[in-house]
């Protein structure tokens, strides 16, 4: 279901910005080839703005495209989760605030999308989401909404996983990682994975053996999870794009949970707050060293 009013506002804003030359391009959503689920859209001309839509199938985190500076200055349509991604990128000095015009959209939930079928059940992450208004924007559409929602508690599937015995965990994960074909779609789609050369592609030092086998795959996924900890905003794109359906977000959500518990830090709430791994408190113990 599409909210006509929201869509109109997006299109008007996009037209205005493109016509007065504030920006070169609008990163937004348009209806996909299956005619029901949204897909990313790159709008360069004022006359194309009518392609832009917004509905609860707009799951993609478009901030990942901001790394390509050729589009700058650019306008981007963001959900609250994607807005946090923008803060992360700003904090990591990857984008310049003045080159990005943020069209923030108040969002209740997006649904699980798969090509050719229209779903109605909200994504798990949306069920525990308590951030319905973007934390950063230049132009806000929708709202105001009741933000006094209950504090997000750790996702049930993470707690369940934690509850398992070491043996069961090993079985589960080796089962998953044995499927991995190392296509790196997870990396390509992730706004946080922007290294020029990824650890996994280095031959010397050889962090990950080139062999495609469970231990190597696990090492790769460990690197991915660790490098994203304290930076992942939980858009779930990695899991969505995984061709062999490895629940990658299960790793990221775990790391964010720990970051929250250890350092009282939530990724992307601000671009000013120092990264949890680039700061410390003298008197924290974290159960390490004693």
């Amino acid at each position, binding site marked *: 279901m599409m909210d006509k009013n929201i869509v109109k506002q997006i299109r008007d804003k996009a037209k205005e910005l493109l016509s007065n030359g504030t920006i070169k391009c609008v990163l937004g959503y348009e209806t996909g080839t299956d005619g029901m689920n949204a897909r990313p859209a790159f709008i360069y001309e004022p006359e194309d703005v009518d392609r832009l839509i917004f509905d609860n199938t707009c799951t993609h985190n478009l901030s990942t495209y901001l790394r390509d500076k050729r589009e700058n200055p650019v306008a981007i349509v963001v959900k609250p989760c994607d807005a946090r991604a923008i803060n992360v990128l700003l904090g990591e000095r990857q984008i310049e605030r003045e080159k990005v015009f943020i069209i923030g959209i108040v969002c209740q939930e997006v649904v699980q999308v798969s090509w050719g079928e229209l779903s109605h059940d909200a994504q798990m992450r949306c069920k525990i989401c308590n951030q319905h208004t973007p934390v950063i924007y230049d132009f806000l559409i929708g709202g105001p909404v009741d933000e006094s929602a209950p504090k997000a508690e750790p996702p049930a599937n993470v707690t369940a996983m934690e509850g398992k015995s070491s043996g069961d965990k090993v079985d589960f994960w080796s089962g998953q990682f044995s499927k991995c074909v190392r296509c790196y779609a997870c990396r390509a789609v992730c706004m946080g994975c922007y290294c*020029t050369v990824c650890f996994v592609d280095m031959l010397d030092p050889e*962090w990950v053996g080139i062999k495609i086998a469970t231990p190597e795959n696990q090492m790769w996924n460990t690197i991915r999870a660790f490098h994203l900890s304290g930076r992942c905003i939980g858009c779930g794109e990695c899991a969505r794009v995984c061709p062999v359906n490895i629940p990658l977000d299960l790793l990221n959500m775990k790391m964010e949970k720990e970051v929250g518990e250890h350092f009282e830090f939530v990724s992307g709430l601000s671009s000013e707050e120092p990264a949890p791994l680039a700061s410390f408190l003298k008197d924290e113990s974290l159960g390490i060293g004693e």
Partner: protein
Amino acid sequence: MSRIGVFVCHCGRNIAGTVDISTVVEAAKKLPNVVYVEDNKYTCSEVGQDVIKKTIEENQLNRVVIGACSPRMHENTFRKAVASAGLNPYLLEIANIREHCSWVHSDDKEKATAKAIDLVKMAVAKVARHQELFPKQVGLTKRALVIGGGISGIQAALDIADAGHEVFLVEREPTIGGRMAQLDKTFPTLDCSACILTPKMVDVAQHPNITLLTYAQVLKVSGFKGNFEVEILQKTRLVDHDKCTGCGSCWQKCPQKVASEFDFGLGNRKTIYIPFPQAIPNKPVIDTSNCRYIKYQGWEKDSKGKKPPECRICEKVCPTDAVDWGQKDEIINEKFGAIVVATGFKTFDHTTYGEYGGGRYPDVITGLQLERLMSASGPTEGEVIRPSDGTHPKTVVFISCVGSRDDHIGRSYCSKVCCMYMAKHTIMLKEHDPDIQSYVFYIDNRTGGKGYEEFSRRAQEEAGALYLRGRISKIYRDGPKMMVCGDDALMGRPVQIAADLVVLATGMDPSDGVVELAQTLNISYDTNRFLIEAHPKLRPVETQTSGIFLAGVAVGPRDIPDCVAHGSAAAVKVVGLLSQDTLTTDPMTSIVDPAKCVGCFMCEDVCPFSAIYRETTRDGRPVAIINETLCTGCGLCVASCRPGAIDLHGYTNQQLLAEVVSLCR
């Protein structure tokens, strides 16, 4: 293609006694890139080093692994040896098969040998990834900072200054002189402490190369060997020392008396004061916490008590208007090439010992208090009397090892000087009053040192001091007497002595604040808070932080001659450093690959030494760059660099991974 030579050291029996060297040699021969293996009795010996040199040349080795003692021991020795063969000294790796192997696994030769092989294997895998490294030259500040104005610090400062280098001597108290200034006489010569110390204090004050900062404290230290930047706090004295002539009319007229720290409360001082007559500088400070005028200023209507008098007598009587109520604390920033830490000691607080009265008995005093009582410039002008009633003691009991050699109060170490000063005290008491009978309760009478044993004999034979071997179980008051109950271990029976005065031979504790200072300087300290030398025998005045040296009791208990020697030793090290025109920096620093850097500058955020700055590449990307002279090679940035753009020379990811992999595959 690397050609690695492996040299396995027997270290006499130290390694060979546990590790089967020949097995290690055979195993090493099979390792990749290893073209030559040899074992030597003592690789670090001249012979051993020549062998390395010769072999490198004969076999065109371009990498060297030495299986021997800890790299913390001989890495530099072997680097020199390698360099002398024309090889870059950083193409060397040491496998620690002594401290980490033979010495700790002597109980299982087989496993120890297997481990030694692994350690060599790791070293070989790592050294294959070594690259040539080249040190840089940087300038240095030819100027030294000495922290602590006791005898050790004074000696160090004078020697450095005499060698022609500028010295800043920083002392926390209002005067230099330290503990030695509080002594009456010194063993074993019994020459008067002041007579030999004060001339040195005067030399300090007058030396053209020495800047003396008393009543001052080191707050911050940054930078590194050759170029330390130090922030010093000059506490306010409320007296302008440029105007003050030290005439003394102020402290004669000041109406406010307080217990003198210098005399351990046995006497009083004024609130504008110099701690003792021969103090250097011989100019007073105002003790702000007790000064009447300060109280007067601080007084408010609602505050209790009636308004104190305005006083300001010192100001009125001062002929040179030196009293300056407006004077503030001052921060002084200076650069130094080297630092000497000589923070000394304080005596152990004996109130922990309830059985000795826990500080409740006025006539149970410490050795240093007795020194003050015997000193002609002390509170009693050298008359030995009981603090309680001013009578002259006839029977004096000494108790040794108070705060030494006692695990119960967390002091397992011997304070070294107590046995000797007890002997000194018994002799001096006899000189003060022939009727005095001294008893000395001791555990062991330790008199190592030139003329020391003779001196101790003199105490017993000439001064007639009775030495009883044993501990004291209790002291109780019986009228004016202090009843000292102990056991005479040699006679095997309990003894009780009715004493007039009891003197506790309190041991040495490191000065207050030494831990904080050590952390500011980042040098290490042991469980007793004594500072740790770079090597207990071979580098006794150096620390693990190059450019910072140690002197005196701050390192551990020692007597005056040792302190003087220690101070001079530290001075020589400093002079050696400052006499160079440039310093060669350690090339084991971080380095950035701009191609990989994504410009997140996490490295910049974590670097404790601000050694990372930003630069823009030709294609307009901001990237991180390392300042190699500021970089200390900690590698914090490397581990924080997600794109793996930073690496640490000598500890690269390749090298460390090579070690891991070689071990597991």
